[in-house]
Structures are given as structure tokens and as C-alpha cells.
């Protein structure tokens, strides 16, 4: 793994490039779009394991942090969805340059899935495939889920008292009004059927909301399947709100999908 900073000099992004072993290297790569806020912290280990798994399939991987997240420049409250989409596009170009390859796919986790979806739809050249892991479809619902998780956690834990207004911070992460609005207006629930890139969805919950978007996915020509893997990534449970996410089955499904796509 090679860690480095890339992007504009005043807004450097942190990236970790995972090259495959030379003997097995293929001419394609994957950029992983991580979740945001507390889910980013929880999913980081899974992202590194995804990178190693993809490497074993000969795929180059770039794991990066959005502006205002992880080790990238900026304070937590400074990023916005528009900025993060540009960051992901910048990461795609960076992986092309450092690996010397043209075919880049995306894996998006939670809110990172929404970002990957937007990059896939808006940026050229299009990715060869996108893998979605528990995609967040609508920012409004995501904010609402985070607020609900926070309220349930506060009620259940004697030592967690959220004194900061939920309009300024959720689950420990502060945000600006610009960031809040950008998240609240993000909605990809109608974007699936129109996608022009092969895609695959892995979901850990099986709710009416999930079934509805999987049905929408099925109507699109580029839908390559969906897989329900229960109990592996409980994003909204108060008992595990700060646990590291470990989802071997989900990771295996995503790795196999990206390895098979040859567009």
C-alpha cells in the first residue's frame, strides 16, 4: 500500500494506492467511495479488506478520503456533496495516472454509493462497473436516520448526552449549513433505472424501502443483480453504533462482481 496526497495543493486529498502483485495485474482499477461521518470511521477496515481482496483479483485500488474527512485537508464541517463528487472524480483520474490504466470502476458504500452513482452518471469516461453496498438513496432520509439513531442512543446510554443541536452535528460529526443542505438535497432513488453502467447492489436490510428500489433497479438494462446479506452490517443499530464493520460475505460479493465485469 502506498499512501500519498493528491489533488489541488490547497485542498490535498489523502489516498492509499493498493497495487496488485505485478504478475497478476490486470488493466483495470477500482476507486472506493467511502461512507461519510461516523460510518466512515466504522467502514474503514472493511474498505482496506476490500482493497486487498480486489488486489488478489489483479485489480488496482485507490482508497481516498473526501475533503474534510479522514486525513484529507479541511475541517469536518467544510465539505459538501458537490465537493465530494469532484473529489471522487479526481480520485478516478489519479488512479488512471498512477496505475497507467483506463478502465476504472467504483464501489460506493452508504453515502459513498450516492456519490459513486453521481460520478458514474455525470463524469466521463464512465466507469466500467459500479458496486453498491447499502446505498443511501435520499439525503433527507439519511439525515433523519442519523437523528433517530442519535436520539435512541441518547435514551439508551447513560453517558451519551448530545448537547450540540442536531442542526449542527449528528452522531458526533459537525456540519455546516452548506453541507447539511447538500446532503438533504441528494437523491438517487430514481437514478438506477437510467444508469448506463453495469451495476450490482448488496444490501444488509430488507425493508419495503429496499425492495422498492431493487424493483426499480430491475427495470434498467444495466442491472446485474442484487444480493441480500442480512446481519453483517448493522449501520443503524444503537448496540453497534461505534463497532468496526466486518462483512466478509458482502465484500466477497462485491469483489467477485468487479472481477467479472469486463466492459
Amino acid at each position, binding site marked *: 500500500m502506498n499512501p500519498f496526497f493528491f489533488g489541488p495543493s490547497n485542498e490535498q486529498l489523502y489516498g492509499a494506492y493498493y497495487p496488485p502483485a505485478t504478475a497478476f495485474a490486470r488493466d483495470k482499477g477500482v476507486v472506493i467511495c467511502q461512507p461519510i461521518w461516523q460510518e466512515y470511521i466504522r467502514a474503514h477496515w472493511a474498505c482496506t479488506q476490500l482493497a486487498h481482496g480486489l488486489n488478489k483479483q489483479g485489480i488496482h485500488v485507490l482508497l481516498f478520503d473526501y475533503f474534510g474527512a479522514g486525513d484529507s485537508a479541511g475541517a469536518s464541517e467544510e465539505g459538501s456533496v458537490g465537493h465530494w463528487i469532484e473529489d471522487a472524480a479526481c480520485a478516478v483520474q489519479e488512479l488512471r495516472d498512477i496505475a497507467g490504466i483506463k478502465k476504472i470502476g467504483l464501489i460506493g458504500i452508504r453515502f459513498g454509493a450516492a456519490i459513486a452513482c453521481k460520478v458514474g452518471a455525470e463524469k466521463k469516461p464512465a466507469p466500467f462497473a459500479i458496486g453498491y453496498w447499502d446505498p443511501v438513496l435520499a439525503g433527507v432520509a439519511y439525515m433523519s436516520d442519523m437523528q433517530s439513531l442519535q436520539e435512541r442512543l441518547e435514551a439508551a446510554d447513560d453517558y451519551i448526552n448530545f*448537547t450540540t443541536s442536531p442542526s449542527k452535528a449528528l452522531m458526533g460529526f459537525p456540519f455546516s449549513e452548506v453541507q447539511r443542505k447538500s446532503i438533504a438535497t441528494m437523491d438517487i432513488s430514481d437514478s438506477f433505472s437510467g444508469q448506463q453502467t453495469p451495476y450490482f447492489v448488496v444490501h444488509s436490510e430488507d425493508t419495503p424501502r429496499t425492495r422498492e428500489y431493487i424493483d426499480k433497479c430491475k427495470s434498467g438494462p444495466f442491472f446485474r443483480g442484487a444480493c441480500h446479506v442480512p446481519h453483517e452490517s448493522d449501520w443503524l443499530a444503537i448496540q453497534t453504533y461505534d463497532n468496526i464493520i466486518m462483512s466478509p460475505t458482502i465484500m466477497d460479493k462485491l469483489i467477485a462482481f468487479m472481477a467479472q465485469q469486463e466492459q
Partner: protein
Amino acid sequence: MMEKAVIFGPEKNLSGILTLPSAGRPGPAGLPGLLLLNAGLIHHVGPYRMSVDLARGLASAGFASLRFDFSGIGDSPMGKTILTDRERGIIECQAAMDALSAGCGCASFVLIGLCSGADNSHTLAASDPRVCGMVSIDGYAYRTLFYYLKDYGPALINPKKWVTRGIRLLKILFSVKTAAIEGVAAPGNGPKTYKREFPPQRKVMKEIQGFIDRGVKAFYIYSGGGAPECYNYEKQFFRMYKAISFKGRVRHRYYKNADHTFTDYSLRVELLNEIKQWVKENFSGREPPPSGSSPMESEKIYGK
């Protein structure tokens, strides 16, 4: 401020971010470097990005720092050498000190750690003379008589609590002394499991006395939710360590309303400001330690 991604360590498998106060130049001479250690299995950005905020905040006061991942955590893969957690902690922290020293020229170090990071800070402070300071958040804790009175007292006047407290007391009596588990066993190729066990109190007290006598300054912070099964009141720190002569070098703070990782943003800002203030007050303009810069032989695990 400038940040640089670095790979270091005897096996070149440790990954971290070096934060320098000004681009391309080391910090003011004499200032110690700061090492920010992993909290459990959370990678080097820290809970809620706490380590990033601390590193950048203290860079503006002239301090260089390195936040890094121990092998098997975050961006650092497992090493090939088989070592105990204690040996690995010492070797990898010493490698981080060497890397920070190479990056900014500092000869002494302040360690900052939460939970397992606090445990590793203690071990290093006790074993490496280059350590001149330590911020320990929810480090080792030992029950005192008043702990039990505070914990079980309310149950005595409330019969509804007798059963639950009774069960808890039985569990404590029949459990391994003050052990806490952090992280869970992972299926398949999961992350390394971290089991937190507190060493005997007498050993810890002896080690603290040792590094205090050497001149190390320490800031001990405990949260209400950090380990309520063994720490539950403001003055417990000075009571559980009452035999230690702190010589005015130790500060203590109890955040009664905070959970272990300071999830509430306002409380976390208060915590980080307090740490930054303590570091600035105690180490700005500090001279390098006179005791040399190599580890003591007894704890020197690999040749340097």
C-alpha cells in the same frame, strides 16, 4: 502546516501522517514531537477524527506530530515477526519516534492515547527515556473503597436495584480482575482482536512513579462512560494511586458526562482544547531531555 504520508518501521509496514508546523521545515528547536496512538481498532484519524483535529491544532502552536497505525490496524498490514502485544507496542512506538525524529528533528516525545492508546502510552513512558509527556484518556483504572460505596450505595436504599447490583457484584467477584474486552472476534480474516487487560495495580504504580521521577509530565483524563465498572468519581485517580508522589507533574480531569469516545461534539471540543492548552503550557520551549535519546537496554527489543 504541511502533512506528509509516511511508511516506516523495521518491516516498512507502518503507515502514518506526519504533520509539520510549517511547510518543509521542522518545528522550533527543543519542542517535543507528538505521537498520536490508535484507540482500539479505530484507524489513525481517531474517534470522530479526534487525532486529525489535535495534530492540526497543535501544529499551529509549533508542534510536529505523527499519527500512525499499529500493524494490523487501519492502513498498516500485519508484520511478519511474531511478537506479544506489549513487544509490538514498544517496537512500533519506538519506530514512530524514530520516524518523527527524522521528519522534524525532535529528540523528545509526548504520547497521546485513548483506551488502548493510553495503555501503550503508559508502557512507552515507563520504558523509553525519550518520552517527556503523556496524555492518557481512559487509561488503567482500579476500584477503590469509595468506588464501591458510590456504585452500590444507591442500591442499598432502593430495593429495586438490589437484584441488578447483586448480579453485577457477583460477576465482578468471579471475573478476572478488572478486565475489559474491546473489539470482537472477527469471522474469517477479521481485524486483529484487541483484548484489554489491566496489569496489577502495584506494577502500574511503580511504573508511574518511575517515569514521574524521571521528569515525565502526564495528563490523566477519564470519562464517565469509559469504564464505569471500575472508575466512577472525580477523585478516584488520586485515591487509586495515593502512594505515588506526583511531584506536581500530573494533572487529572474527570469528564463525568462523557462517553468513552467523546461522541458529543461540544464536549469533544472542550476536551481537545484542554489537551492543546496542557501541551502548550507544559512543553513550549522545552529543552531536549538530558538523558540521551536511545531506549533503555531492558526495553530495547530490536537493535538500533
